[in-house]
């Protein structure tokens, strides 16, 4: 089944199935990458498309250049070392490309 992308992202760096790591970085300001996911390893679940950068929009700028948005899937046991549920549980979260690096 084709997963919705909304807009094409031909220049993207990652594809569905790629292993990625969320940057472990704590810059000040408005960020859409929750702290709990920073530094964690996951797999690209879907490419959502290209969107104005919310980190710029938040301060009244135009959001350019736009950024590619991905949905990344993480094992819960990777995200929370003390996770109480089974190994098979996932958490999926939207991450902008500039927060991702190849794992």
């Amino acid at each position, binding site marked *: 089944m084709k997963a919705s992308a909304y807009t094409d992202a031909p220049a993207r760096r990652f594809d569905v199935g790629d292993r990625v790591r969320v940057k472990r970085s704590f810059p000040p300001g408005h960020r859409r990458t929750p702290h709990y996911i920073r530094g964690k390893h996951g797999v690209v679940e879907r490419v959502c498309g290209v969107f104005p950068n*919310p980190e710029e929009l938040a301060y009244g700028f135009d959001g350019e250049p736009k950024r590619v948005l991905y949905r990344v899937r993480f094992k*819960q046991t990777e995200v929370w070392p003390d996770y109480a*549920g089974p190994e098979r549980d996932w*958490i999926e979260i939207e991450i902008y490309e500039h927060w991702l690096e190849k794992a």
Partner: protein
Amino acid sequence: MSHDPHDDHHHPKAHGRDFDEGPPSEYEIMSRAMQELLEAKGVISAEQIRRRMEQFEQDFPHRGAKVIAHAWADAAFRRRLLEDGKAACAQFGLDLEADRLIAVENTPQVHNVIVCTLCSCYPRALLGMPPTWYKSENYRKRVVREPRAVLREFGTVIPDDVTVRVHDSNADMRYVVVPMRPAGTEGWSEEKLAGIITRDSLVGVTVPKA
């Protein structure tokens, strides 16, 4: 109308406290003070604010049940909904405006549940106003790290051999769960099916029962 300034991402500090517990946060106080000032200066009235909120409920009623009932009854529609939620809703005569919708399907192997840990992003154009618990810090913090315990508090017990998939709606997508159609609903009309599809089941904290 996916971006209500009152609970958008722009004031992360506003979410240091629950909406339903404890003293108001700095931003709630600021927002109330602003409203009082605007009223005192005669710019807007309390009645106008109340009416606008009421209008919002009318503009965006809970329309999710109809969509999901149709998806249960029509396999081709269900497939389109899972491929592109926004386009499928448009075809069903439902304009989701700015909301880009991802529909996620419950199966015997997978149970989905939705949260926005940064604030309270919610598919308003489809489901209307979010419930208070969805915006509470308690739900937002806990459902990502102990989803099974939170679901149990909603009366939903997920067996250990079923995967729990939590979706953090933290950026530009909005989510709706497509629950499993319960046994015993064979031959039901879409209207009757819609009657058992609750808002909470579309967020994934409960499952519909016949």
